[in-house]
C-alpha cells in the first residue's frame, strides 16, 4: 500500500493509504480528527475545508497522496494548547455564527484564509463572495458575516479583542 507523510497541526504522520483515499478520510478515519466534516459528495458545501500549505482547500476533493509532504491545519489545530480560542472561533461563538455547527469547522477555516489574504480589510460583500464555497443550512449567514468582520479586526491588529456582540 502507498504511504503518505504529512504534517497535521504541527505533528508529522506517516500513514498507509489507498490510491483513492481522500485527505478528509485520512484526517477523520486514520487520525481520528473528526472536526473536519463531510456534507456533500459534489464538492460544493465546504464543510470539509482545511488548510494545505496555508491555503484553504476542500479536503473531500484532494487525494491523501496529493497532500504528501504538505503542512495541513484542521479546526483542531487552531486553539492554543491552553484552550484559548483562535480569534475566528471566538468571534463565531460571540456572534452566534452557528446553530447546529455542522458547517462551522469549514466556515472557520475558509474565513481564516479569506481574512489572511486581505490584510487591508474586507467589505461585507467581499466576505459574502469569499464564502461562496461554504453552505450553511441554519444561520442565514448574517451572523457568520458579522463574526468574520469582527475577527478580521483582531487578526490584523486593529482591535485587541472580539467586540461583544451585544454592543
Amino acid at each position, binding site marked *: 500500500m*502507498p504511504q503518505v507523510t504529512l504534517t497535521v497541526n504541527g505533528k508529522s504522520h506517516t500513514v498507509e493509504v489507498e490510491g*483513492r483515499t481522500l485527505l478528509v478520510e485520512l484526517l477523520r478515519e486514520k487520525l481520528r480528527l473528526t472536526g473536519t466534516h463531510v456534507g456533500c*459528495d459534489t464538492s460544493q458545501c*465546504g464543510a470539509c475545508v482545511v488548510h494545505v500549505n496555508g*491555503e484553504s482547500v476542500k479536503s473531500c476533493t484532494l487525494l491523501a*497522496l*496529493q497532500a504528501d509532504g504538505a503542512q495541513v491545519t484542521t479546526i483542531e489545530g487552531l486553539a492554543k494548547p491552553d484552550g484559548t480560542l483562535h480569534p475566528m472561533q471566538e468571534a463565531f461563538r460571540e456572534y452566534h455564527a452557528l446553530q447546529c455547527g455542522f458547517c462551522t469547522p469549514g466556515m472557520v477555516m*475558509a474565513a481564516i484564509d*479569506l481574512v489572511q489574504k486581505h490584510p487591508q480589510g474586507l467589505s461585507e460583500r467581499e466576505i459574502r463572495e469569499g464564502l461562496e464555497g461554504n453552505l450553511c443550512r441554519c444561520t442565514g449567514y448574517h451572523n457568520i458575516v458579522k463574526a468574520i468582520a469582527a475577527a478580521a479586526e483582531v487578526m490584523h491588529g486593529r482591535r485587541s479583542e472580539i467586540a461583544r456582540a451585544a454592543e
Partner: protein
Amino acid sequence: MYDFAYHKPGSVADAVKLLTADPEARPISGGQTLLPALKHRLNRPTALVDLSGIAELKGIRKEGDTLTIGALARHVDVAESAEVTSAIPALARMAANIGDIQVRNRGTIGGSVANNDPAADYPAAVLGLGATIVTDRRRIAADDFFQGMFTTALEPGELLVAIEFPIPEKAGYAKMRNPASRYVMTGAFVARLRSGEVRVAINGAGPCVFRQAEMEKALSANWSPEAVANIRQSPEGLNSDIHGSAEYRAHLVTVMAKRAVAEAG
C-alpha cells in the same frame, strides 16, 4: 470511488510514457473535476498520473505579443498574476470568478481546457482570443481544439502543456452564473485582436463553446454594445435543462455579448 494506482512523474516525457503504456490511466491536475466524477463512479481509471510535480507545465510568461500560461497554472495564479492582469485583464477577471476560493486554489487552466465542460469559463477565452494549445507533441489552434461536449482534439495520452494567448487590443467577458453550482449558464467572450480580427465566443449555451459569426461581423464594423443588441441567437441546438430553456439561453447570448463589449471598453 473505485481504487486506482497513483503515479507522480517528474517530467512530461515520463507522464506521457505512463499514459501511453496504460490506456486506462488518466492525468490529474487540480482534481476539481476529475475527483467529483470518480466519486460518482462516472469513470473507472486504473491509474491516476499526478501532473503537479512537473516543472515544464508551470509558469506564466509574457513575450512580445504573446502571453503563455502553463497548464498547471491554478485559477488563483491566473487571477493574481501581474502579467495576466496587465496583458489580458479580462482573463484575470474570468479566473477570479471561477467557482469558489477553494476550487480556485486547486483547479488549473490545463484541466479546465482539456475537460471542455460546456459550462466552463476558460474555453470561451481560449476560443474568443484564438489562442494556441501547445501539447507534448504539437500545436493546435483553438478553432480546431474544441470539438463537442467534453470532447477536444487531444488524443488519448496527449498532454496539454501550455496555452499561448495573443495579447488583444481589447477583450471582455460577461456571464450569467447558475446561483447554486456557480457554473456558467451562458457567457460571451469578445475580443479585438491587434491584427484587427474580431472574435466572439459563446460558452454555457450550447453543448460546446462556439463562435458567433453574425456578432463578429457587426462588431468588426462597429465596436459597441449597440452593434450586437439586435442580433438574435437561434435557440436551435442550444442546451435545455432544469436551469434554463434553449430560448432563455439564446436570449442570454445577446445580453452577455452586450455586457462583454461594454466591459472591454
